[in-house]
């Protein structure tokens, strides 16, 4: 029952939001309350998975390989918890004001449909169902992205829609071929039977199709160009939601499907993924250095750091995958905070162009201190969470034969530091280029940012236990038999 709630709660909230009378304060309150309930349910689910192991619910009581099953292992439970946190932060920031036209068009309900799609994708144990949740997420994100009518936004939305639909077509093709050979779509059943039914040729084709489909969604090189072209255009809260959740759904799906279907670390797809991850890191950060607008800098940083989250899968050791899972958690928190902070700049200075920002340290010291945490956590400055996650990946890379990855990760860490130090320098240190009127910061916008910053600090302080949990999550992923037994029973 607990497993269905992260999907039912946002659905019920979205329906309620559509039926309620159109009063902004009421809608915002309901949306925020719904997000808090998701968070509560997700924490309860995580606690249950921690103590009792993998949780399984069979929808409609159909036995496992035939009906759709929902499965929560540690990795899924952790990510659903992040959905609750990010959902609460984003809906909470709407109290500070949303464009009234967007609000009239169902902004709050769409956010909850998006949260439902993401939770569903994290919890499903059926690969076709995963495709359906992807589409639910996509449609709501399409509408959220194109609610506005300015030309730049429409153009960005069209690129986003076209590329994501292409990814869906690739995913559907892979699922069709997989079903043709395996005769089942249940992930646990696939993990059990696929090793006997696979043929090398089909294995290679499928792994590349899945890599392309999930690579587009996650934003891997050379498939990421839609992301920096579109993420800077929607309002900051929507950008924060997309940056925090959407690419991570691609990363999650890649890790889940690859550990289930291709459990052979010698598979050539992992060499390809390793090289692509390394190039993604480098190209993303070089792109970030070339940008002058804060939200574009963040978009390229988002792409570059996706490389850190897939490199653990490519290295295929519990230490590396555990570090990548920790990196996913850290990155979801930090990038969401940074996009929300860019919203603060947008509110105060009407721009996120770094050249016309400045002097914020003098005018708003409290915000500067808040922003310092995510900026330097993303850059990987010790003792913040980004440093611990990067350290995990570098040490894991040095243990294996691919020690050059450690060099790439370190170089990219340095580039991130340069890129983030520039954001800090231009937005906060530099004297303000315009004699702008300094308005008081909207306190309601600062509260969710402050909450996320506290969580980032908590993640840094509790890094030991969290790393231990993500190591166990990685163990569960790399040894699929526990998952298979939980879903299919003793057979």
């Amino acid at each position, binding site marked *: 029952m607990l497993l269905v709630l992260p999907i039912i709660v946002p659905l019920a909230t979205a329906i309620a939001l559509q039926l309620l009378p159109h009063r902004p304060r009421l809608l915002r309150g309901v949306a925020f309350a719904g997000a808090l309930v998701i968070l509560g349910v997700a924490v309860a689910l995580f606690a249950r998975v921690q103590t009792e192991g993998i949780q399984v619910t069979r929808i409609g009581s159909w036995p496992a390989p035939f009906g759709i099953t929902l499965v929560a292992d540690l990795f899924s439970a952790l990510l659903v918890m992040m959905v609750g946190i990010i959902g609460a932060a984003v809906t909470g920031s709407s109290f500070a004001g949303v464009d009234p036209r967007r609000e009239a068009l169902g902004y709050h309900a769409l956010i909850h449909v998006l949260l439902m799609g993401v939770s569903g994708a994290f919890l499903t144990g059926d690969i*076709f169902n995963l*495709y*359906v949740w992807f*589409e639910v997420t*996509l*449609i709501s994100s*399409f*509408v959220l992205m*194109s609610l506005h*009518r300015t*030309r*730049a936004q*429409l*153009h960005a*939305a*069209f690129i986003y*829609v*076209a590329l994501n*639909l*292409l990814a*869906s*077509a690739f995913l*559907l*093709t892979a*699922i*069709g*071929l997989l*079903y*043709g*050979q395996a005769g089942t*779509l249940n992930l646990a059943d696939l993990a059990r039977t696929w090793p006997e039914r696979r043929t090398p040729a089909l294995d290679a084709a499928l792994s590349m199709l899945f890599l392309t489909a999930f690579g587009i969604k996650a934003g891997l090189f050379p498939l990421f160009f839609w992301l920096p072209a579109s993420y800077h255009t929607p309002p900051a809260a929507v950008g924060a939601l997309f940056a925090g959740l959407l690419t991570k759904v691609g990363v999650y799906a890649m890790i889940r499907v690859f550990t289930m279907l291709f459990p052979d670390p010698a598979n050539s797809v992992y060499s390809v993924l390793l090289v692509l991850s390394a190039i993604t890191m480098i190209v993303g950060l070089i792109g970030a250095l070339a940008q002058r607008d804060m939200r574009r800098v963040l978009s390229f940083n988002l792409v570059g750091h996706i490389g850190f989250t897939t490199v653990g899968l490519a290295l295929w050791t519990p230490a590396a995958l555990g570090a990548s899972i920790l990196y996913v958690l850290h990155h979801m928190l930090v990038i969401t905070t940074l996009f929300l902070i860019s919203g603060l700049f947008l509110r105060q200075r009407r721009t996120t162009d770094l050249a016309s920002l400045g002097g914020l340290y003098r005018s708003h010291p409290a915000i500067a201190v808040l922003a310092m945490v995510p900026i330097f956590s993303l850059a990987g400055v010790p003792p913040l969470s980004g440093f611990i996650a990067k350290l995990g990946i570098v040490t894991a890379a040095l243990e294996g034969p691919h020690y050059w990855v450690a060099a790439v990760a370190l170089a990219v860490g340095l580039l991130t530091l340069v890129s983030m130090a520039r954001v800090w320098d231009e937005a906060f240190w530099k004297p303000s280029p315009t004699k702008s009127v300094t308005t008081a910061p909207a306190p309601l916008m600062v509260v969710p940012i402050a909450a996320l910053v506290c969580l980032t600090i908590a993640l840094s302080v509790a890094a030991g236990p969290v790393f231990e949990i993500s190591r166990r999550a990685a163990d569960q992923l790399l040894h699929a038999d526990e998952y298979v037994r939980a879903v299919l029973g003793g057979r």
Partner: protein
Amino acid sequence: MELVLAIVAGALYACGLYLMLRRRLAQLIIGLSLLANGSNILIFAAAGVTRGQPPIVEDAAVTAASFADPVPQSLILTSIVIGFGVLAFALVLAHRVHASAGSDDIDAIRLDGD
């Protein structure tokens, strides 16, 4: 039958991808819909085509050859419905892009809009 379906699916994929590489929005959308239909036919062909048999049988003692597999049909049905909704959305979006930019050439929109 599988061979014909495989060729049809391949042709749809080829045409869809070719059209997606073009610069005009209308062609891009037609390409997307061809691609979606190609993948539907691919699911049908890959899962095996059974002629003249019902998909659902009551008798428990049936063999694999005596009934058509209902799963690919339901998969295709689902993806047709999803594809229809997505296509409708993409058409409306393209219409709005065209209305605001006055052109359906992707490069022209980009130069002005960026």
